């Protein structure tokens, strides 16, 4: 049902990765993105694969759920693979017909590229989307970019906007459903009729949706005022991000692993 829609793909849990400070996860995620892009040798990429599997173990999320979460991008991986196979024309030729030429080099490089992308997606999923709530993510971005406040970047406001947007996604999804049903009752067409009828059908949804979103925004602003909201200054938080020993430990372990991968790739 519409009500159960969850934002992002967060998997409830209490594993080491779940408990890890989200700022650490964001920084590590960034680090791994760079490292995985730099890695060029099959051996080091396979080692990186091992590290990602290690992360998966740390997350204690069932392998099936993890695979489910990357399933939508499998098509993209396949596309990248095929494209690379077809465009890389160096190396010994395996098959050749019409304008298609498949080379051993091509298959290897395409495979590496696909693996790289796969690791990238899997790694960020494990570190961020699967184990971190969107709200914590917004919080930690506010904290990480906190220093920018000094040069008047509205970091708090942006984080607040992000978390309010997250809060209202399910509400608006539900509302869209409701409006579509109401308009369909009046004969609007979304799935039948020609393309113009359908376009017109969507107008009947979008206008009320925008009107109501603005009304909600207005009312929410009043409600926030009434609850003494006055920007980020002097504001405290219920959940304060706190680096614990375990956070330092995993931060060091995982960054050393990342650097190790780089070294192996360079010198082996």
């Amino acid at each position, binding site marked *: 049902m519409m009500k159960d829609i969850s934002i992002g793909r967060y998997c409830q849990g209490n594993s080491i990765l779940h408990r890890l400070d989200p700022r650490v996860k964001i920084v590590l995620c960034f680090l791994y993105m760079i490292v995985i892009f730099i890695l060029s040798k099959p051996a080091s990429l396979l080692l990186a694969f091992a590290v990602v599997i290690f992360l998966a173990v740390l997350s204690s999320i069932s392998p099936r759920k993890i695979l489910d979460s990357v399933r939508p991008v499998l098509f993209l991986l396949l596309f990248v693979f095929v494209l690379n196979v077809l465009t890389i024309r160096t190396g010994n030729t395996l098959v050749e017909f019409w304008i298609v030429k498949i080379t051993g080099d091509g298959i290897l490089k395409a495979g590496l590229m696909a693996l790289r992308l796969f690791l990238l997606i899997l790694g960020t999923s494990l570190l961020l989307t699967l184990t971190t709530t969107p*709200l914590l993510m917004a919080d930690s971005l506010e904290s990480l970019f906190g220093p920018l406040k000094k040069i008047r970047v509205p970091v708090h406001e942006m984080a607040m906007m992000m978390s309010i947007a997250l809060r209202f996604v399910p509400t608006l999804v539900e509302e869209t459903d409701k409006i579509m049903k109401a308009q369909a009752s009046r004969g609007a067409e979304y799935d039948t009729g020609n393309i113009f009828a359908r376009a017109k059908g969507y107008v009947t949804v979008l206008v009320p949706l925008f*009107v109501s979103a603005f009304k909600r925004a207005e009312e929410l602003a009043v409600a926030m005022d009434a609850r003494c909201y006055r920007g980020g200054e002097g504001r405290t938080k219920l959940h304060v991000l706190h680096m614990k020993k375990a956070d330092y430990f995993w931060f060091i372990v995982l960054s050393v692993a990342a650097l190790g991968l780089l070294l192996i790739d360079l010198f082996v």
Partner: protein
Amino acid sequence: MLAVAFFIRETTLMTEGKSLTENADKTEMDVILDDVSFSYVHMETEVVSALSDVSLSLGRGSYTALLGRNGSGKSTMAKLIDVLELPQEGSVLVIGNNTNDESVFWEIRTSCGMVFQNPDNQIVGTTVEEDVAFGPENLGVPTAEIRSRVDDALRYVGLTELSLRQPSQLSGGQKQKLAIAGILAMSPQILLLDESTSMLDPISRDDFLALVDKLIRDKHMTVLHITHDMSEACLADRIVVLDHGKVALSGPPGEVFSQVEAVRALGLDVPVFADLAFTVSERLGVEPDRKILYSRELALNGIREMLRRPPVTYMPAASESGKVESDVAESGTSKSPVSGKDKSGARTVLQVSHLSHFYEKGGAPALDDVSFSVKEGEIFAIIGHSGSGKTTLITHLNGLMRPESGDVFVYPKDGTGPLNVRKNADVRSIRRLVGLLFQYPEYQLFEETVRKDIAFGPKKMGYKDSQVEEKVQSAIRLLGLDDSILDRSPFELSGGQKRRVAFAGVIAMDPDILVLDEPAAGLDPTGRREILEYATRLKAMGKTVIIVSHNMDEAARYADRILVLKHGKASEPMTPGELFTDEGRLMDLGITAPEIVTCLRELKKEIPDIRLEYFRATDAADEIIRAFNTHNRPPVGDGYTAAAADNTSGGDAV
């Protein structure tokens, strides 16, 4: 409803004790409005005066209900107290601080907590506990203390177990409790409720009111409660009625509701029991002790006392010259309490058979083998608690949802075979025959002008332009809308007008069957009555009307037959008489009797002759007098003979 009655009794006792202490120290006023005026600019040109020269004060720990038509300035008053608006003239003092003094701005806001009408639009946090923490966070409360305040507040309102849920997973009632928790965490002195209960179902409403009652007792909070519900207003120790920005009536509930005519003239209603007692007094031609019209128990005692009084003159129902406006509005409908019965021979227009629906595989069914049929020209009510499957059921009726198992058939007037909701080819015709109006339909308006918006449906249904215009005209005439409204933008209309325009949009499609989901939700008493009158008018035009309702009194008054849904299971359709007079059946179905039936049942204890199947105050009053007379004394004298004869004949017609 029973729960409400319980609180009424409780607060009655409290009021008596409190008014004494209140008089003792008048100095402790939490809010003082002194000659306050406020106006705002509407649509850039029109200056609307929301409040003019209003003076009012709220004592510490007092509970004030603020009543008035939509647009009478109630919300403005609450906003002035919470410094969300500043008065243009006069002054507002909140706990000794003037709202015009900028240096105490935040102090005032901290001391006031406000719960708004729409639960969704006041929740900021992405989880329940985050939302409760929002206020204290803004106040700069240290983290450890926020934690304990959040935990305390959640425990107080009973949401501890849901603290990590997303707000969208809560019910409406839980969301409003969450709003209260968010306020409690800021420990304010004054609680402002701006129609906070108007979007809740009866059970959540009683829950919410119990919570407010607890706050007044435990925390001695000062409460200003804006509401359209008269029985809610009776819980307060003072009622203030606003009309066009001025205080029209003010005083304890007993005093305000004693002025029945004045209250009605202001577009409000009196509670059902008060209406009944007042009507009995009118019929008997005696003056009631008007101060008792704010609790069922007292009103019933009043009726007992009036019956025992020696008669002055009896006014039979026929000679109602000085009848109150509201009754005139209702008089168009049949007086017979079981008018549904003669419909048994009518044609079936809609048939639901063995309909089931599951939202999750293996989960609890939303609809469980529901079967019933609706006859042509009847008003068919569907009642049940939130989550009983009402909305799921009605979205099947015009094919918005297709049956997973079971069938829905629609029978057109021309006698062609039944249309099946399962068949794609039939759905288009079904959408034309079955008009569906969802709850709060004003959100579906989208066109530039009202005319275009109302015409959208009929155009889609393939009517010619001239026909469309005709349909638009007849729809707005039916709903009492003015021609001049047609060229305005639907978005600049008032809430009540928007509702009627949306209603017109469905009526203009000229459907045989109209399905209305809580059509009167959130409207003031006048608006409510008008909307429900349209249902009777449609019925008079030969349309079939299916109404989903929470309000038992209204269902009893307007419906020919009623279907009760409980956990997705449907009862047999019954007449209001069959359903509401059978206490065991009500208990089984988990619904409460209409207030008026509860009143009659109470009186029946002493006057066993009373029949319960009367749902309008006028009919019920006649029945009480008739039963009392036949039971207690044989008819003597002209007045009584006439009365008895009149009433018996009325009864025989049944």
